[in-house]
């Protein structure tokens, strides 16, 4: 028996990294999980396969969640497989997350806002509609970031979108009052892309610079996707049922530390 037995969860951007970590952690606790990603390849299907191996239902739903039509298609596909939606984790983001201020053109800005703000909003709106129709309550979790709190060079567009998500979940909490739906953010700090054993590592990009981390994070180590996944597990399980409109930082104390912006 797990903390999420029988729940149906959709995780966007879950082909690898933090998204895959969340998908497999929720599956470990008994949830049926739909993996979404814009990339449809063997790795994506492997994520769904790893979920099924845990004795729950794992499905893959390819799609771009940066438009309303795209989100609706993904949620339709999820509902077709799972019948209902109890948990939505908005996690999708493209790899090119930081850009210098004067290189940030309209195309980049729109891409950032479409995926990580508009996409998260309309995904939440659609999921909430389904949850209300099901009369089952539900949980919406958005991935924010430490960049929602402080400015680090070249992260303005990303940080702006992430800061807006902190306010967005408060609005969802208030507007969804009476429907037993909670909406919250998890704000990761520096997270390595190393997945635990059994999650089938898919590492692309360089690992974090450990000297940089040690100088800035009291926990003196980078976080793992499983740290973020565990916070999502808390919010989506009964343990977190009264947390609403909140953003939980999972950063090893990075933001609390004065060294952050050195």
């Amino acid at each position, binding site marked *: *028996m*797990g*903390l999420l037995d029988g729940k149906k969860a959709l995780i966007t951007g879950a082909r690898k990294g933090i998204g895959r970590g969340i998908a497999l952690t929720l599956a470990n*606790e008994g949830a049926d999980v739909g993996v979404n990603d814009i990339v449809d390849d063997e790795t994506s299907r492997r994520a769904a396969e790893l979920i099924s191996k845990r004795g729950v239902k794992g499905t893959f739903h390819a799609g771009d969640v940066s438009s309303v039509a795209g989100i609706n298609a993904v949620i339709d596909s999820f509902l077709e497989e799972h019948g209902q939606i109890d948990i939505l984790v908005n996690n999708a983001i493209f790899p090119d997350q930081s850009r210098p201020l004067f290189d940030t053109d309209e195309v980049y800005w729109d891409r950032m806002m479409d995926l990580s703000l508009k996409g998260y909003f309309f995904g939440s709106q659609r999921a909430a509609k389904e949850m209300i129709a099901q009369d089952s309550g539900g949980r919406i979790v958005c991935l924010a970031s430490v960049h929602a709190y402080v400015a680090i060079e070249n992260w303005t567009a990303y940080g702006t979108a992430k800061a807006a998500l902190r306010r967005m*979940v*408060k*609005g969802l*909490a*208030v507007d*969804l*009052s*009476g429907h*037993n739906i*909670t909406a919250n953010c998890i704000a990761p*700090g520096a997270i390595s892309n190393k997945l635990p054993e059994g999650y089938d590592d898919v590492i692309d990009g360089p690992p974090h610079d450990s000297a940089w981390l040690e100088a800035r*994070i*009291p*926990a*003196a180590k980078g*976080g*793992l996707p499983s*740290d973020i996944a*565990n*916070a999502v*597990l*808390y919010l989506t399980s*009964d*343990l*977190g*049922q*009264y*947390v*609403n*409109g*909140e953003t*939980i*930082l*999972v*950063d*090893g*104390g990075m*933001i*609390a*530390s*004065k060294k952050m912006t050195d």
Partner: protein
Amino acid sequence: MTTTKLLEGKKALITGSRRGIGAGIARLFAEHGADVGINDVVRDTEADKTMASIESLGQKTSWHQADVGKTEDRTRLLDEFVASHGRIDILVNNAVASADIHFTKITEEFWDNLVGHALKGYLFLAQGAVNRMIEHGHGGRIINISSVHSYRAWPHDTVYGIVKAGLNRMVMSMAQDLAGTGITANCVAPGYIDSRVLTEEEEPERGSADNLGSALSFIPSGRGGVPRDIAGACVFLASDLGDYVNGQTITVDGGLLSGGVPPDSQPLEPGQPGAME
């Protein structure tokens, strides 16, 4: 009850745990496999009930009468707990007693008493626990119970709000100074929590919307919080699930702070204790 036990074998001391939120934390910790020390200023039938419920879950419990506002009591409390359990893995600073008082009526005595208990008391109990955790060498967890009053002002809550805001800031420094020890320090900030003493028959009514009155319209989750909600956040922070959460305050308020609506409580009427003249 879950079969996923998140605190198996942990030794936890929870202050102010004879009833209310503290007792709720103690019970959920025990459900998750922790042995729990119960502390309060007096032992009564509520304390006995709390301890019996922990024993019925198959966990060890110990009683520690102490006033965390007193230096000698704090030291004795930690010594007693360690003597009983062998070590301390988790400290939850929860004990507090306060009263509404208008700003103009705050006396030095009132200030010294509340700050002495709920800010100074928490700091030095945490320091004592941390020193014992470092000595033992296996890390640990410090959790302070803060409040939504740390973020927003309600009528007549000046000193209480200051103390709670101080706790949020305290854990940030602890995260910084305890780097490398494997100890994390965090706060949980409850909103409106129905912590009344109820009979077993009345227990299902706990947190129900019927008892909320005007407060209900300010709580998006549509019910009052219950001690178990605060306990859930403490289990998260105290377990491996919360390993990378450090120096942080988690608000558990059913969305109370999300709205921009005014606070729900009414100022004291003239003539009531603590009211402005």
